[in-house]
C-alpha cells in the first residue's frame, strides 16, 4: 500500500467513520515513532515521528492533551486528545521515562529511569520544583489520592521510595522485592500494589511506611497494572510468563482470570466502551486485543518496533501532517490480520 492509499484510508476514516472508529496511540519505543491505529478497523493508519525512545504517555489534568515522554530527547510531545494532532513540544524534561500528574493536577512527576532521578514539577508551566537523585533505576510512579505523596519503584535496588510533593523530600525508602516496576494506589488509599518483575508475584505495601503487608503469585515477570475501571479489579502484565492476569483487590488481592499474551506483554489500555483490553507486545511488534468479558485474545494489530505505551483517543485522530510533520506511512495491505 503506497502513501497515497494510506492517506486515502486515513481520510475516509476521518470523514466517514468518526463515530465508530476511535483511534489508539501506540508508542514504538525502539524506532522513535508512534502509531495511530484505527480501533474499529484494527489496522495501523499512520506512523509519525516523535523524539527518541518514547515509552509512556499520560493524559493532562484538563483532559485535553495526551503527553508523550521521549526519554532520549528530553521532551514531551503534546497531542490533542480529540484529534491526535500535535499541539506543542515541552523541552528540557530530562529522561521522562514514566510520568504522571498528581490527582489534584498541581504536580507533574517524572521517573528518570536511566539518569537515576525523580523530578517534581509544578504542573502549571512544567516548572521544576525539585530534582531528587536516587540510585536504583527509578521506574514507575503512583500518587496518593490526596496528592501529597508520590511513590516510585526503584527497579535495580528492589525498593520503593516515597517523596513528599510539597517539600520534595524523601519520606521513606523500603525494600519490597526483586525488580519492582508497576505500582498502583488502590482507591482506599491504604494499599499500594507493586509488581515485581524479577519475581512471579506482586506485593501489597503500606503507603504510610513502606512495609510489605501481603503477597500474591501472578506470573513470572510481573510488570505493570491497569485499572479495569470499577475501582476493584486491575489488569497486570507478566512479561516473562507472557500472561495478563486480572486481580480482584477487594479484601486480600487474588487472581480471578488470566489470558496468555506472548511477546513480553507490557502496557495496557481499555477501549472507551470498556469491552476490550489492548496490550502492547514488545517483542512481537504488535498490540493484542483482549475481549474483557471472555478474557480471550480477539485480535492483533502490527505496529512498530518495541511497542510500549498505549492510549485510547476519544475520537478518530485526524492524522493530518500539519505543522510540517512528515508522515511515514507504515501500514501495508498485508498488515491486516
Amino acid at each position, binding site marked *: 500500500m503506497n502513501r497515497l492509499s494510506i492517506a486515502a484510508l486515513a481520510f475516509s476514516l476521518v470523514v466517514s467513520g468518526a463515530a465508530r472508529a476511535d483511534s489508539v496511540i501506540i508508542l514504538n519505543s*525502539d*524506532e*522513535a515513532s508512534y502509531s495511530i491505529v484505527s480501533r474499529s478497523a484494527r489496522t495501523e493508519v499512520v506512523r509519525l*515521528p516523535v523524539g*527518541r525512545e518514547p515509552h509512556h504517555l499520560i493524559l493532562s489534568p484538563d483532559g485535553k492533551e495526551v503527553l508523550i515522554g521521549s526519554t*532520549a*530527547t*528530553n*521532551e514531551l510531545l503534546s497531542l490533542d486528545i480529540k484529534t491526535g494532532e500535535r499541539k506543542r513540544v515541552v523541552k*528540557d524534561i*530530562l*529522561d521522562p521515562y514514566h510520568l504522571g500528574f498528581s490527582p489534584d493536577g498541581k504536580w507533574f512527576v517524572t521517573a528518570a529511569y*536511566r*539518569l537515576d532521578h525523580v523530578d517534581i514539577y509544578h504542573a502549571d508551566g512544567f516548572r521544576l520544583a525539585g530534582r531528587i537523585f536516587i540510585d536504583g*533505576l527509578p521506574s514507575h510512579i503512583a500518587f496518593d489520592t490526596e496528592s501529597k505523596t508520590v511513590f516510585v519503584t526503584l*527497579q*535495580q535496588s528492589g525498593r520503593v521510595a516515597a517523596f513528599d510533593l510539597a517539600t520534595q523530600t524523601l519520606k521513606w525508602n523500603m525494600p519490597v522485592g*526483586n*525488580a519492582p516496576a508497576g505500582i498502583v494506589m488502590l482507591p482506599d488509599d491504604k494499599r499500594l500494589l507493586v509488581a515485581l*518483575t*524479577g519475581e512471579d508475584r506482586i506485593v501489597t505495601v503500606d503507603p504510610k511506611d513502606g512495609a510489605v503487608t501481603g503477597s500474591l503469585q501472578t506470573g*513470572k*515477570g510481573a510488570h505493570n497494572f491497569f485499572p479495569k475501571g470499577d475501582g476493584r479489579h486491575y489488569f497486570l502484565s507478566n*512479561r*516473562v510468563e*507472557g500472561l495478563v492476569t486480572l486481580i480482584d483487590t477487594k479484601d486480600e488481592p487474588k487472581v480471578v482470570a488470566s489470558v496468555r499474551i*506472548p*511477546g*513480553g506483554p507490557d502496557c495496557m489500555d481499555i477501549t472507551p466502551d470498556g469491552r476490550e483490553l489492548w496490550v502492547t507486545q*514488545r*517483542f*512481537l*511488534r504488535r498490540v493484542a486485543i483482549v475481549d474483557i468479558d471472555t478474557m480471550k485474545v480477539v485480535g492483533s494489530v*502490527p505496529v512498530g*518496533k*518495541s511497542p510500549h505505551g498505549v492510549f485510547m483517543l476519544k475520537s478518530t485522530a485526524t492524522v493530518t501532517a500539519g505543522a*510540517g*510533520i*512528515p*508522515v*511515514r506511512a507504515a501500514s*501495508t495491505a*498485508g*498488515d491486516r490480520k
Partner: protein
Amino acid sequence: MRDLIDLWVGAQAWLFETLVSPVLFHFGLMAWYEPGYGAVEFVMLGVIQIAVIAIGMRYFERRWPLEKAGRDDGLIMVDRVYTVLNKLGIIPLAIFILTYPLVQEIELSVRSWGYVPPRLERLLPWIGDNALLSFLVYFVLYDFAAYWLHRGQHAFGWWWALHSLHHSQRRMTVWTDDRNHVIDDLLITLALVLFSQFVGVQPGEYVVILMVGRLIESWSHANVDMSFGWLGERLLVGPRFHRLHHALSTPAERHIQDHNFAPVFPIWDILFGTAIYDEKIRPTGVDDAAVDADNGRGWIVQQATVFGRFLRALMPRFRRRASVP
C-alpha cells in the same frame, strides 16, 4: 513484507523466551532483559551473514578465483574461526559487556548536561519521509567515521601493532574481514557506538548499518577477479579496490597500504586523496617477518602474540627489554 517481519520477530521472540529469558529471570538479571532480546536478534543476523558468506560469496570465489588454490590454503581456517566468533556475537558480547559501563557513563553524562543528539529529520524533514534515504544518510555518516578510524589504525604505531594482524593474511578471502585483535575490535566498536549516539543513529538503524556494512566489507575481501565497472568501483568498495589496500608493500610501492581505506563508500578516499584505481594484481600481506609470522598460528596464539606486539609498541621501555637477545 509484514509476513516476513512476523516470521523474523516470531523466531526472535521464541528463541528469547525459550532460551534467554528464563536464564535472565533465574539469575535475577532482569536489567538485561531488553538488551538480551536485542542480542538474540544480533545472533540471528549473524547466522544469516555467515550463510550469505558461506553460500553466496563463496560461490563467486570458487567460480572466479583471483588466487588459485595453493599451499597457503590452510591459512584461511583461522579466519573462519574469527568470522564465527564475531558473527555469532561471542566477541561482540564480550565487548558489549566490557564497554557498556563506559558507554553508559558517557551517554548519561552528556544527557544529564542537556545535550540531545540531533536527528537529521528535524533539520531536513523530507529525509524522514523516506526510510531508505534516512538509512542511507546515516550509513554514509557512519562510514565517514569508519574511514577515519581506519586511517588511525595505520597512522599510530600502537594501533598498527593491533591492526597488522588483519593485514598479515597472505590468503585474503571473504573470511578475512573479521580477522582482528579483540582490543582493536573493542576500540573500533567503542568509537563507532559513541559516534553513532552523537549524531543520533537509532539503535535499530545501527544494527542494520552494522550488518549491511560488514557484509559489504566481507565481500570486499573476497578472492575474486571481479569489478563493479568504472562507476560502480567509485560508488561501492569492491574486492579489487580493497585488495590494493592489503597489497604487500615493495620498495617501489612502500606505502601502498596507505590507500583505499574506505570500508564501504570509496568517496572518502577520492575526496581525501587516498584512492588508487588500477588493474595490477598484487600479492597481499605485510612486509615484516614478525607480523607475517601470524600466518599459521591459531586464534589464541595470534591474540596473545599480537597483544605482546601491542604492549611493546605502547611502551618503549618494554620494547627495549624485549629486544635484548
